[in-house]
């Protein structure tokens, strides 16, 4: 705070016709550089995970009743007796060859473990995200339009209450309740497993419903803001029918602000997915990583955290690309904040 120099105010309006470069080039270059940085950070974090175990990692991993000789052998097997840079080097070179290590517990290659489980997690998460977007955006918009300028107080109150309640219900609680109602009481849908298409319904709903409510509230608020903008008055001045007014003029703008704010929520749904898998005995990464943490099976934990991290990074990139398509101004902005 010592420096007196203030950040430059935005330079004057962008001079028309002065553009020489496609903004997508700079955008993609920056985002790819960012992605590379994130990858490096993820690799470093997963590598350090073992090093950061309090006390002597080898002793902690070998178990409390291991003898000194056993611990020493374990340490050597894991390479923990080598200097840190050498350990890191072999970890990275292993990753580059697609070698994520071998599970302590099952002796399976971690890459195979993840390859067998990732599709289930990805299926669940992606379906849930699509469901959230498909429901929350029209719902939030419709409520915002219906309650604009303080109309329909009851609908407003009902929407606020219902989304507040469901949005605050954790995915795993909702999952448990869904099982209770639809699987045990009504016997409509299977309670667990991934054997049939119908088994997908409850987990997807459990993951999607709370986020749908939260996003619908965001959409509703952003729509209310957009409806009050001057350009919406301009559009009304052109006396467009409601569909053109809302779909053409309001939607792109509110999607921009909604994605800016709701994008974080979409990546956070990965986390919800991981926990919900436990409710439904879903054969995804979630159940496996929990098992690995309980058993201190580090190669599996490292591999899973790395893969989940990459998944989140790709999701973030996808959201940024979507934002760029919706509003070219975000291409030159530095970040989504």
């Amino acid at each position, binding site marked *: 705070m010592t420096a*007196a120099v203030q950040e*430059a105010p935005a*330079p004057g309006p962008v001079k028309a016709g002065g553009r020489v470069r496609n903004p997508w080039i700079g955008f993609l270059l920056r985002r790819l550089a960012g992605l590379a940085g994130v990858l490096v950070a993820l690799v470093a974090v997963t590598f350090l995970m073992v090093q950061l175990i309090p006390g002597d990692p080898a002793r902690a991993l070998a178990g409390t009743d291991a003898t000194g000789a056993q611990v020493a052998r374990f340490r050597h097997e894991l390479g923990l007796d080598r200097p840190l840079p050498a350990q890191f080097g072999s970890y990275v070179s292993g990753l580059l060859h697609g070698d994520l290590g071998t599970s302590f517990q099952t002796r399976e290659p971690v890459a195979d473990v993840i390859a067998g489980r990732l599709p289930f997690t990805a299926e669940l998460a992606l379906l849930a995200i699509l469901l959230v977007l498909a429901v929350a955006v029209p719902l939030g918009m419709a409520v915002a339009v219906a309650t604009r300028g303080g109309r329909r107080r009851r609908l407003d109150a009902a929407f606020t209450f219902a989304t507040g309640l469901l949005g605050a219900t954790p995915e795993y609680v909702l999952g448990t309740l869904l099982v209770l109602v639809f699987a045990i009481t009504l016997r409509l849908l299977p309670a667990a497993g991934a054997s049939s298409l119908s088994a997908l319904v409850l987990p997807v709903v459990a993951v999607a419903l709370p986020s749908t409510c939260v996003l619908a509230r965001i959409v509703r608020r952003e729509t209310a803001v957009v409806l009050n903008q001057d350009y919406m008055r301009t559009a009304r001045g052109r006396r467009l029918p409601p569909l053109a007014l809302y779909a053409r003029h309001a939607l792109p703008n509110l999607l921009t602000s909604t994605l800016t704010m709701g994008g974080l929520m979409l990546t956070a749904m990965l986390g919800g997915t991981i926990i919900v898998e436990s409710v439904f005995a879903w054969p995804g990464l979630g159940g496996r990583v929990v098992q690995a943490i309980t058993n201190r099976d580090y190669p599996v934990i490292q591999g899973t955290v790395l893969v989940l991290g990459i998944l989140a990074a790709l999701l973030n990139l996808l959201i940024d690309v979507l934002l760029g398509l919706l509003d070219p101004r975000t291409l030159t902005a530095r970040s989504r904040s």
Partner: protein
Amino acid sequence: MTLPAEKAPAAGPAAGKLVAEHVTVVFGHGRRAHTVLDDVGLTVPEGTTVGLVGESGSGKSTLAKAMVGLVRPRSGRILLDGAEVSGLRGARLTAARRRIQLISQDPNSSLDPRMRIGRALAEAIDPRRADPRAHADQIAAGLEMVALEPDAARRHPHEFSGGQRQRIAIARALVARPEVVVADEITSALDCSVQAEVLNLLARLRAELRLTMLFISHDLAVVRHVSDSVAVMHRGAIVERGDIYAAPSHPYTRRLLASAPSLPPKETR
């Protein structure tokens, strides 16, 4: 109204109280670099008001910020009483800054919404402790200077109108006993009749306190009303100074004057 004698600049080489010398300000780096001020020179003689007119993006607000030390010039110097203030740091910068006060444009942003007026003025008097009780007399005097009641000290900014808030901002700048005041578009957010109040106040303070002031505005008539001499800024450079109203020489000044709509006469009978 007769013009006071101090209108004529004092003789000598360091004639200006506040002087900008070859000031260049660049924002951004590399390919995005953007020269906002290009070799600007401006002198504000002691006891006079210099008006600075220009349109948006001309760099006049940046010059104001550079003058008070909120923006660091890439090259050139700002001199106060002949001593450079632009390169100072730390305690000496703080000391120099109190001698030049800035009053800014937006009445909604110029006062801390959470702070009572009394405390805001106390902060201007004693920046460390900011105790309104210790300086009650000075605060009351400051408020009286801008024609506000002493009990205004107990209120929050949102209880005042835009014009009143600008007057409080003027009081805050003046109780710090600055040697120079830089006023950046202080009336442009105000309605015409409220603007008149603030302009009259400034006229009175100039006469009573022999204020040295740099008055910045986009409004030619307002600048003319307030200032002893006027400089015109265009695209980061001062294109003309002196008697721009009677005999404009630069084409941009002429265009500016021609563009200003002229007002109907006050009244005839």
